[in-house]
């Protein structure tokens, strides 16, 4: 019954997409506004169909309706409620259902947002494109990835989710956030394609999708950070990023998306980089599909291969059509896409953005190459190989450091051109702070060139951000009699985009510093202890107190109780699940602002009662999560509509010629 209802909802969604596309297409062709207005109503139909299908899936999961193959494969009677709920995206078919729910949600919000412009051909075309993408995913569920497929033989109990997906509550957040990020890029993509089709690739469509792009970017950022956190808290290898193909697949659209968020300002401001911006939006979308293909087709070896399936060729065909379609559209519009402006000086904001973009694109290329190289090697040389951490680090670290540098310098540069004098004045303090940090670190004997450079650039960037904020507040206070907090809040409210962006940059500095410290200064040991025995690792004294075993139908957990002097008791564990052979480790972590103590149980007590513990001291890890939070906070600030463009008056209160700080405050803020 549920199976039939669910399938019906998917069929309605598919039909709704087709009818929506047909109606809007007819409206555009016949230039009839009534059809364009009618066409957008199908977005509502499609959204409701997706909600129904998802709700039916959840009800089937909770009702243990094992006649549905997906339910039988992803929950067992012993699966706790939370993981029964999250089982809806624990495997391929359900993931596509969640994907469609998010996609239709975005589409519904966008359609509602543009309700007054329903007859605008740009909006109509964008809706057609987005409905086309929706149609593809609905069709996948109608055919090769039907989440409501019935089993010929109904099992008494289900398999239960993959052990890794039922061991930590973060699984409730990491995939949905990532999907909201991935899927959100469909909207800018649709508008970019619509701009190419209608020939309206001025700056209008960019303003239309700016907010959605930021929302998608923020979700993707959260998704990636939560993924790193999940990896750290669940996988128990002590790290948070392993350059796994599927991790890379999420990083790729993030890199091109980040590049776009920056370069879009150059187009808005100077009308330049039109081809580049459109290409970035199109590439970001293609990379999300490539990511899905890599995750779901099993072509690459990955820890994420939860559900390999037969939809690989479908995704590949879709990716091919989209990518070639994009290339053809750009080629068709090549003559009209030429930008009117050009870069006047290599020392200007737009030049810094251009370099930043090339670096992001270069980074994306490095990651893409490393991810797909094993496939190429297999195709041409017939041997399996993987590209590991050393490649990504050797290539990625210099690019990351260069990005950090341009992030510090870029916001200080004025548009168009600048004089050496201005540059000197603006960079003086931050550069000194950076240099002093460098000297102090070297004198203190800090190890690692990359680490020292990253910390110094971090100090440089933070000072330059601080300086911008201080100058802005000072300029406001000079113009109006406001207290510092009031001036600060009003300044941010007046230009949320700038200050939101700067807050994001603070988050990036925190993440960069945390990455550098945790990669460079980690201490790893293994200790084997008998009951009551102690060991000391980097100042932490650990005593093994004994073992505790928890048994539940869902899993059996062996915990090693460890007393850490001064910190209390910790319990790294290994759990075994009935549907899986190997044990799943659960680390026990003491989190501190300076460093984490990360304990894992490597081997359970043997006959002689000894256990082997992994002890890892990870410096500054917590700043990775805090930095991620700050990045999201900054994005939220940037999303708040600015109250009013903040024009600092340079007239009545300061009749004499405006001093350099006021000029800078105005310049930076515009």
């Amino acid at each position, binding site marked *: 019954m549920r199976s039939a209802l669910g399938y019906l909802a998917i069929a309605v969604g598919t039909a709704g997409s087709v009818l929506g596309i047909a109606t809007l297409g007819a409206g555009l062709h016949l230039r009839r506004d009534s059809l364009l207005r009618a066409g957008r109503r199908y977005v509502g139909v499609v959204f409701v169909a997706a909600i129904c299908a998802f709700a039916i899936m959840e009800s089937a999961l909770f009702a243990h309706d094992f006649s549905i193959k997906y339910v*039988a494969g992803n929950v067992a009677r012993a699966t706790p409620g939370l993981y029964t709920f999250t089982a809806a995206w624990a495997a391929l078919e359900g993931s596509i259902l969640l994907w469609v729910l998010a996609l239709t949600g975005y589409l519904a919000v966008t359609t509602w947002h543009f309700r007054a412009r329903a007859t605008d051909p740009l909006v109509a075309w964008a809706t057609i494109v987005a409905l086309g993408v929706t149609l593809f995913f609905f069709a996948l569920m109608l055919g090769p990835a039907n989440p409501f497929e019935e089993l010929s*033989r109904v099992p008494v109990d289900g398999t239960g989710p993959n052990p890794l997906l039922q061991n930590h509550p973060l699984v409730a957040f990491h995939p949905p956030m990532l999907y909201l990020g991935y899927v959100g890029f469909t909207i800018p993509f649709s508008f970019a394609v619509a701009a190419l089709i209608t020939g309206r690739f001025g700056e209008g469509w960019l303003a239309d999708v700016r907010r959605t792009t930021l929302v998608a970017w923020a979700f993707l950022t959260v998704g990636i950070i939560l993924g790193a956190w999940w990896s750290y808290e669940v996988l128990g290898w002590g790290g948070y990023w392993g350059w796994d193909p599927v991790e890379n697949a999420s990083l790729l659209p993030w890199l091109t998306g980040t590049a776009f968020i920056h370069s879009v300002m150059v187009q808005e401001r100077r009308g330049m980089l039109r081809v580049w911006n459109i290409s970035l939006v199109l590439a970001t979308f293609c990379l999300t599909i490539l990511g899905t293909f890599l995750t779901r*087709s099993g072509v690459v070896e990955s820890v994420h291969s939860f559900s390999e399936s037969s939809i690989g*060729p479908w995704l*590949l065909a879709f*990716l091919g059509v989209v990518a070639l379609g994009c*290339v*053809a559209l750009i080629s068709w519009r090549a003559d009209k896409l030429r930008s009117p402006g050009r870069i006047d000086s290599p020392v200007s904001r737009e030049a810094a953005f251009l370099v930043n973009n090339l670096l992001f694109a270069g980074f994306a290329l490095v990651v893409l190459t490393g991810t797909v190289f094993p496939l190429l090697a297999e195709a041409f040389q017939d041997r399996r190989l993987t590209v590991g951490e050393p490649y990504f680090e050797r290539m990625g670290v210099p690019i990351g450091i260069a990005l950090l540098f341009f992030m510090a310098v870029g916001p200080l540069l004025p548009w168009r051109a600048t004089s050496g004098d201005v540059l000197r004045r603006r960079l003086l303090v931050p550069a000194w702070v950076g240099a002093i940090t460098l000297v102090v670190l070297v004198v203190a004997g800090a190890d690692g060139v990359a680490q020292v450079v990253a910390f110094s650039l971090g100090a440089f960037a933070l000072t330059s951000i601080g300086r911008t904020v201080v100058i802005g507040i000072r300029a406001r206070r000079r113009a109006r009699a406001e207290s510092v907090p009031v001036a600060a809040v009003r300044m941010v409210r007046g230009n949320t985009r700038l200050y939101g962006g700067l807050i994001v940059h603070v988050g990036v500095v925190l993440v960069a510093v945390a990455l550098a410290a945790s990669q460079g200064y980690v201490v790893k040991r293994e200790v084997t202890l008998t009951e009551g025995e102690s060991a000391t690792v980097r100042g932490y004294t650990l005593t093994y107190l004994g073992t505790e075993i928890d048994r539940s139908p869902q899993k059996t957990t062996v915990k090693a109780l460890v007393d850490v002097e001064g910190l209390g008791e910790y319990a790294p564990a290994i759990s075994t699940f009935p549907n899986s*052979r190997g044990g799943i480790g659960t680390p026990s972590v003491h989190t501190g602002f300076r460093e984490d103590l990360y304990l894992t149980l490597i081997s359970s007590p043997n006959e002689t009662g000894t256990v082997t513990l992994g002890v890892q001291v990870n410096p500054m890890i917590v700043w990775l999560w805090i930095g991620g939070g700050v990045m999201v906070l900054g994005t939220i600030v940037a999303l708040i509509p600015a109250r009013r463009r903040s024009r600092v008056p340079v007239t009545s209160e300061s009749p004499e010629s405006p001093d350099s700080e006021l000029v800078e405050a105005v310049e930076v803020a515009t």
Partner: protein
Amino acid sequence: MSRVRVVALVVGAIVVAFGVVLALNVDSGSPTTDGGFVGKRPDYSVRTLDGDLLASDELVGKTVVVNFWNTWCIPCIDEAPALDAFYEEHKDDPDLVFLGVVRDDTESAVTAYVTEYDVGWQIAMDPDSRTALSFGVTGQPETFVVGPDGVVAAEQRFRVSVEDLEAMVQAAGGGTS
């Protein structure tokens, strides 16, 4: 031709080449008669649900199809019709033994399943995983065909189709009915 078009053309060509490479990598998952456990001689002895003892030594001279499965494994349910069809075709062949070995499941669930779906071939529990270990099993379903010489001739570490099974038995040099 404008510069943008040239770049677009190059990008298009790269996309196509890349697509071809990816397409070549999409795995078809067919059985193998090479590598894995093929060529090795498993040593096992199981008691079937009917109480019979089946041991590798006594099965020499016969072709043995060993299918590892359980009741909660969805791919096992998926391949069940293929097993039924294959068994139906070969059940009268005296030189072919079809054995299902259950991993990680309860005997009551298995008995209920065997009764409900009328499974005709021999089914044995493998409580301590000895049999699975002797075949180097990594999951289920996995199917092995042991030749009359007692050596594994072919294996499939995923679902099997009737064609897969026929080809595997052929590779073992038996079961040509």
